[in-house]
């Protein structure tokens, strides 16, 4: 039936380009329509994922607003229209409770763990000047060992963790450090998990790095963030 014998001849370059162009156009059309078709759903999914992560670390929050803090110390709301990217600006989320009062600030931190970067989202409580809790965004730590940071009771008892700024609001009064299990003496120290020291240290470093960078930019403007805009 399908015995249309193709003669063993070489195709001309023009024909090749014509066919390839046609197929490329067809494929381009398919990709664009898939992109258009899923655009809204993907955006919505991303928003829900961020919201869920923030609500997890700030349990009292009911709505969130995304901001960026520029190196100059300005805080700009990231609206639906999108803001012009400022170089060096750091993103953070302000969580508001049901009365539209500021419930906490969620910041993302990254540090090298045992097998890859550990990305965490931690909540800063402006009233108490503490880190009230954290959640893992991505981690490839060894299951059963490194992922204990989310379930180990002794480790979770480290929070709230003191994160006071110095009087001139330039940096943390005491850098957040992870110490060996059982040797925590100060409220800004993190008591590591035995056997998962490297992951525990990564959490401490991630919080410290992000807090050192971001808190001096945010804290002077806290009054502007108090109410949901």
């Amino acid at each position: 039936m399908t015995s249309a014998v193709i003669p063993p001849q070489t195709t001309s370059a023009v024909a090749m380009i014509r066919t390839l162009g046609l197929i490329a156009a067809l494929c381009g059309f398919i990709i664009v329509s898939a992109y258009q078709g899923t655009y809204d759903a993907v955006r919505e999914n991303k928003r829900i994922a961020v919201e869920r992560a923030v609500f997890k670390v700030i349990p009292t929050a009911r709505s969130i607003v995304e901001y960026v803090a520029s190196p100059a110390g300005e805080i700009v709301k990231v609206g639906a229209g999108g803001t012009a990217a400022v170089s060096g600006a750091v993103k953070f989320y302000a969580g508001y409770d049901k009365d539209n009062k500021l419930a906490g600030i969620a910041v993302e931190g990254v540090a090298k763990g045992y097998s890859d970067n550990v990305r965490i989202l931690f909540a800063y409580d402006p009233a108490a000047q503490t880190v009230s809790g954290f959640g893992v965004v991505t981690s490839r730590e060894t299951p059963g060992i490194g992922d204990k940071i989310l379930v180990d009771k002794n480790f979770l008892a480290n929070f709230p963790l003191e994160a006071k700024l110095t009087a001139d609001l330039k940096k943390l009064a005491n850098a957040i450090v992870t110490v060996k299990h059982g040797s925590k003496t100060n409220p800004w120290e993190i008591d590591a998990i035995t056997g998962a020291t490297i992951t525990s240290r990564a959490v401490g470093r991630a919080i410290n790095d992000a807090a050192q960078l971001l808190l001096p930019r945010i804290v002077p403007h806290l009054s502007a963030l108090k109410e949901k805009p």
Partner: protein
Amino acid sequence: MTIEIRSAPHIKGTRSVEQIMRHVVWSLMPICAFFVFQYGLSALLSLLVVTVSCLLTERFFVRQGGQSGDIGDFSAIITGLLLALSLPPGFPLWMGAVAGIVAIALGKALFGGIGFNVFNPALIGRAFVQAAFPQAIASYTPSFMPGRFYEFIPSSMTIPLMQPVSVVAWLQDRQFDALAGATPLAKWKFEGVLANADELLTSLSGHMAVGPSPVLILVCGAYLAFRRFLDWRIPAAILGSAGLTAWMLFALNDVRFPNPFFMLFSGGLILGAVYMATDMATSPVTPKGMWVYGALIGLLTVIIRYYSGLPEGVMYAILIANAATPLIEKITQPTPFGKGVLSNFGRQKKGASYPLHSGYISREDAGAVTPKKRFLFNKPKQPPKE
């Protein structure tokens, strides 16, 4: 008279595999007995369960066919005993059984049975449970507990597939803190506490969570070496190279690194050096190769202990050296007599490479001709076809 026609070898030693293995098992008996004396009923049951699971797995695979060896050659018993000795005494029994099955199935049967395995089966089993149950395998309990002969360590009796029963309450009941169960190596690595020499040597004093007694292993190993059931070069090379490396590091910085004595007599180094590294199928057969092999194990052990996240490195050191064994054998082939560098010096390769006796007349000198091959003269042409 019957004439047996077969290929070489025609002259065999009087020793059989079964005989060697039986002697190794006998020599392990005092070590096992002391292990049971240290840890009581749990250790006895652990030895039994692991060995039985090894034997049953061996039986299954031998029955399936395609395997060399048979169940009666004692090798599975050695695997089981060594595996149990290298596990914590309170290791849940079901995990011990898993280790035994994996040791024989993955470590031995898949390669074709006894003599074909590339890695030491007991260590394969241990490596598997180390990767699968990292917490259970690191939880030792103190030795010489009062009442160890009529009660089990609670974690031994864990229901299959379940997490080990916690021993914290059981230890507190007996006025031990939860950290009493750390091995000397773990104590050194994580707390910086060095154990005393007498504790390490006899493991009689205190409630140190140590493995089987190193002195006893050395004595039993010396017996085997004396009877030539194992080659003394391998343990000597391992202990020598580990001791030397540890001593050099100790001389460089005696605060950071422990003394070489601690290095040698803590953890499973002695057991590994005497019984595991000397496994005949997985270690080199050339004398020079044995030295290289042993030195590699000793060096790797010290490096893993000092510079990795693990407190103990003997197991991985031996497995790596097992993998390197074929290469070591290849590069340490002994030179046949007369084929050495000196005898070839300044001489053409052609002709006899061995010194000729003056009275010897070579075939060429005598003008001899090689007769044509006639061996197949009477060979039947083709089987008649139907």
